[in-house]
């Protein structure tokens, strides 16, 4: 697996898109710091961008990489390598190179700005960690979708739909149900609903850490009340890790049975 990972990582690190993705974050970090001049505000703005953009890029890159390397994967399958090693290796190659673009691209401007001497270092690291986790989650989901769909167009379609659902539609349904059932106690409902969506969960995770959950309104208040800040963060992190491990398990399982 490490060998496959090594070479797909090499391959991706030299791809134009990795640079574009890296430069985008570099630019975003610089612009935000110059315009805002306030680390905490910059972190919040970044959070809003990251939470939507990272899942989108993760899914698209994951699906694209899988379909583009299909013929090469066939060649690898004929080599004395376990199937799961091939796909997990490729998955890690994609997700780690994406995560690296994110962490280095945003890290550099913040380091130059002096993040190490500031109170925002904790919030900022958490932002990068959740960003990396979201990359891992959505690339894994993309691989699951690509493995189950031999038709490229369908695969892309499902991947975009998944992103659209988790990033946009899910929240809409959630809010509408809150309005619709406002006469009932909704604490547990909203808690569970938030836990089930990795994007919402990451947002809550960061906002809890920043102690500005009042901004989040209802969901944040519920989270604050139920968990207190520490337990909330631990539970949310566990949930995110679960979001990585379940798709990984599926990749292993589906690739083991698939015909190529």
């Amino acid at each position, binding site marked *: 697996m490490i*060998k496959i990972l090594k070479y797909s990582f090499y391959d991706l690190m030299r791809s134009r898109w990795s640079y574009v993705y890296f430069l985008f974050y570099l630019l975003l970090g610089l612009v935000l710091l110059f315009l805002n001049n306030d680390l905490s505000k910059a972190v919040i703005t970044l959070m809003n961008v990251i939470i939507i953009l990272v899942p989108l890029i993760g899914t698209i890159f994951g699906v694209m990489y899988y379909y583009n390397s*299909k013929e090469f994967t066939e060649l690898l399958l*004929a*080599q004395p390598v376990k199937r799961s090693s091939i796909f997990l290796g490729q998955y890690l190659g994609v997700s780690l190179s994406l995560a690296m673009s994110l962490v280095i691209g945003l890290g550099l401007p913040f380091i130059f700005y002096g993040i190490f001497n500031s109170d925002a270092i904790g919030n900022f690291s958490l932002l990068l960690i959740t960003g990396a986790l979201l990359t891992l989650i959505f690339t894994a989901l993309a691989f699951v979708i690509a493995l189950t769909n031999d038709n490229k167009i369908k695969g892309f379609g499902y991947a975009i739909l998944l992103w659209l659902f988790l990033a946009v539609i899910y929240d809409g349904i959630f809010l509408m149900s809150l309005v619709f059932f406002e006469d009932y106690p909704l604490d547990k409902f909203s808690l569970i609903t938030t836990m089930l969506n990795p994007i919402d969960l990451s947002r809550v995770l960061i906002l809890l850490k920043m102690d500005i959950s009042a901004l989040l309104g209802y969901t944040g208040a519920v989270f604050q009340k139920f968990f207190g800040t520490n337990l909330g963060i631990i539970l949310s992190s566990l949930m995110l890790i679960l979001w990585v491990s379940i798709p990984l398990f599926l990749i292993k399982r589906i690739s083991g049975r698939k*015909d190529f």
Partner: protein
Amino acid sequence: MISIENLYKRFGKNQVLKGIDLEIEEGGIFAVLGPNGSGKTTLIKSILGMVVPNSGSIKLNGKAVKNDWKYRNNIDYLPQIANFPGNLSVKELIRMIKDLRAHKTTGDKELIELFRLEPFLDKKLSNLSGGTKQKVNLVLTFMFDSPLIILDEPTTGLDPISHIRLKQLIQREKDKGKTILITSHIMSFVEEIADEIVFLLEGKIYFKGDIPALKTKTGQPDFEHAIASILTSSYDKDIKV
């Protein structure tokens, strides 16, 4: 070397292999022929473990290949379509495939010379032409010294000189006592190099034997017509049905 018993494979509603029994002895060149969609590639991919059969068994040297992957150390495979990670160089790709194999003795230098690939070694794979990619593909296949070689349409995109070199290469490997499995649609190529023909028709073995036997069976004086006569009789049958 390879023994296949009662092999069935279905893709959705499409029954591709309908009970294949095949015994391939050690040594010699075997050509797997058949019309489009007759199951040639599926058969080859089943041997390689890329396609999981619905039922039946495949044994390599007496050992079942199911749920195993180490046996692929003894097979060299040339896939039909050559497509490689675009941002790696030819050199890196060769190193990667070597990394994955247990046998480290390789003849890649000689092959690179044979196919005149030196000027391309440091080039990115995305910048290579189709024919050059196929040559790289051939190097990746032949650089290991495995007893079984499987070639899926090896002549695609090759210029005449490389074509001749490929034939010499296949002949040389055969002389070492290796077993070589080839699929091809180019009948003159098959006639020139194959010792035995395995003819697949609608997911079954229609014929297995050498070229003279095929000519006798079909009553045709030359190989190309013999194959054509099998195909036309099968098409006629389709039309009647």
